Every structure is written in C-alpha cells, then in structure tokens.
C-alpha cells in the first residue's frame, strides 16, 4: 500500500497526537528540520518567523545544564519521546527524565549498552556503531552513542521516540559535549 508518503504520515501522526494532547507540547520552532521553506514574513503570518531552510547543528544556542535530568528533559522534548535516560561507558544509568518506571531504567540501560557493544563488533569495516532503534511489541527504544571522553561512549536513549534526525542527534551530542564537565 502506498496511501501516502511515509514522512508526511509520520508528521501528521505526530502533530495529531501533540495537538490532541496525547503527547506533550514541544518548544516553538521544533519543526525547524521540516522540508518547507518559509518567507521571512507574509501577509498571513503576523508573528516574525526567521527563515531556516537548512539549520545546522551548531546554529542552535547552547544551554548551561548542570544536572542530567535537565539535559535529558531538554533532549526528550527535542525528539518528542516519553522518557530519556543516559548510560555511562560502564553500562550504568546515570540520569533519567520523563515517564520513568518505578524500577528505573537500570536493566534496560545495561542491556542496551551490551547490545550496542555487540553490534559494534558486527563488522569492523562498517566503523563504530552510532545509533540503534529497537522496535518491540509494546515500546520503541532508540539510542545513540556520544563520545565525550577519549574513546568512551555515553549512550543517550529514548522511549517511544518517533525517531530522530541526524541534525537532532548532532544537536543533542553537541549540547552534551558542552555540558559534560559540569554534569559530571
């Protein structure tokens, strides 16, 4: 079936869920990575709206987060997920935000870290594993690795994210790099 282009359907589905209150509001401008061009100001658009046809990861101002939960709350808002957590290079969950289950993400984080290290060794010629998206019967688990210290990757993971673009991933990684020394 090709009822509609999948990206349009994904956008419509995400917007409908947000507008009907099933998912939290994201910050204004969260759709900046959309494929549309915008006029700087049109007759039908009274509010100033900068044209951002191709925003780069380093265009976004950096925040001075001091706590993991602050950073993760910002991250989950960017990818529109229900929860986010961070896993250190040893496989321990060091922070979480959003709809966190009572027993936390300790087990999930350790297993995700293990799965990523296994996948990393799948084929050395492919290079290092950057991200995974695992779809289970009930939930979706996505994560990416960000190397903020020499050779040591921290995993930032999301529950029920619609998926994240390379731009969003790079923005979060850049923010983590900026805040990392304070977060620790």
């Amino acid at each position: 079936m090709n009822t509609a282009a999948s990206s349009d359907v994904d956008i419509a589905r995400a917007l409908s869920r947000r507008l009907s209150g099933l998912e939290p509001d994201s910050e204004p401008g969260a759709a900046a990575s959309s494929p549309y061009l915008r006029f700087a100001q049109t007759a039908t658009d009274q509010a100033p709206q900068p044209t951002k046809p191709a925003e780069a990861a380093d265009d976004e101002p950096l925040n001075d987060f001091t706590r993991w939960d602050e950073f993760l709350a910002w991250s989950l808002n960017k990818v529109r997920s229900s929860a986010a957590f961070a896993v250190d290079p040893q496989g321990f969950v060091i922070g979480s935000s959003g709809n966190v289950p009572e027993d936390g993400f300790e087990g999930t984080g350790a297993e995700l870290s293990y799965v990523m290290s296994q996948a990393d060794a799948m084929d050395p010629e492919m290079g290092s594993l950057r991200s995974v998206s695992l779809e289970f019967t009930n939930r979706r688990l996505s994560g990416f690795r960000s190397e903020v210290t020499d050779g040591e990757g921290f995993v930032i993971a999301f529950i029920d994210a619609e998926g994240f673009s390379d731009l969003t991933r790079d923005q979060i990684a850049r923010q983590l790099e900026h805040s990392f020394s304070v977060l620790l």
Partner: protein
Amino acid sequence: MTHRIVLTSSKGGTGKTTTALNLAVALAERGRNTLIVDLDPQGAIGLFLAKEDGDWGGLAEVMISGADPNEVLLSTSLPTLRILARGRIDPVDTCEYELQLHQGTILAETLDAIEGDGAVDFVLIDTPSGLGPATRAALAVSHFALLPLQAEPVAFRTLSQILRVLDHVRQHENPSLQLLGILPTMVQLDNDSSLNVMSSVWSGFGGVLDTVIPRSDVFSQASEIGIPLSFLGGGTRPEARRFTLLSDEIEARINNMTGIEDDHEHRRLV
C-alpha cells in the same frame, strides 16, 4: 459560554460544508443555540441550500456597508439555528474579501456582536478549501478546529498540511485554539483504498473521532433538494443519525477539554 468551531481542510470536497450544515442542525435540534458562519467566498452554505448567489446578505454587508451583524442574520425553521451568510460579494473581489478578513478584526468583532452574553452556544465556521487568508482568519478567532478527512488517499496525503498550520496558529497567533478532532468522511470500508486510509488513521493518530460519516447517495439527494439530511422526507435516515451522534460526541469532548463536568447523576435500574 460560546464555543467557536472552525471546520477546515486543505483539500476541497472533503465534506466541510455538508458537515457544518448537518452538525449545526443536529446541535440546534437538541436545543443548542447555534450559528453557522459561511466564510467561504463561494458562499458554499447558500449554494448547498439551493439559494441564488446574490440571494442572501451577510458578512459582506457588515464588512463593506457597515451593517449591524444582528440585522443580517438569517433565521431558519429551527428557532435555535441562524446563519451568517457570506453576503452579496462580487466574485471579482474574492482576494480583497479574504485579505480583509485576515488582516483586520472584523470577524472577531462580528462574532462578538452576535454572540452577546451567552446568546449562542455553538458557532460553526465553514471555510473555503485550502490554507489561505479566510481559513487563517477563522483559525485565529476559534476555540476548536474540526478537520473533516475524506477517507481517500489524496485527502489523507494533505492531512499533515492542515495540522502543521493548526500547530503554527496555536503557537503564534491563537494559543486557545485546540484540535477538536479529525472526522473521517465519505468512508467506504468495502473499498480497499478507503479502508487503507482508515486503517492508517486508526493506528496511532490522535484526536480521531469515534463517529465516522459514510459515503452515501442520500447526501446527493439532500443537496439536490437543498436541505439538510434530517429534513428529508420518508423517515430518519441512518446518515442523519450519524450527525446526532457526532453532535453528542463533540459536545462531550468539548466539555472534557474545557473542564465542564457531566452533571448526570447515578440512576437506579430497579
């Protein structure tokens, strides 16, 4: 409290006017003071009711001649239903009409004047197809948006467009605007492409109404005569009951969204 509901979609022929008219009748028939506003430059409500293009005065007279909005309202055979028609505007001036609607405050002022202090329970604003100035003007003054979605692939492909505009208006122009719901229309579950669309809509979309409007010849019959479905002779049509269900669902959903509690009390069967 008056609830303003804009019916809008970016694609034409999705059932906006049919829904606006039949939903307004259903609300009025259950005693709600209801106003239909025809914002479509084509004057779709008047055309649907088989009126000549220049028959009815309305919003254009308010905008161009400074008429009192309450003086140009049209009464109907239902005491609780009135119509603010498009008015006698020259089709040549469609662009000016739409731009003035959007750039000025005439629409909000007109509605305020008609609504008075709780004189109207529901205002249903029928808009032209597309995402132009008249639609944006309606979105800017409304509390709720109802999106008729024709259950066929092309209409489905445009759904992201209207949702994006709705999201933008809510963030930048009218924070009180809420998605009331997506209303599947012209549904044919025995047709593969229609079924495919409905399967997609029912899996993961937010705000989809339980009520669906099926495709049926009875709509053509009503439109040929120029009357709402429930006014057709020969007994109540099942399709007309759909709009009764829709009015019930919409009222319940608005109560839920605005925090109005259902005042029904427990009952005893025996």
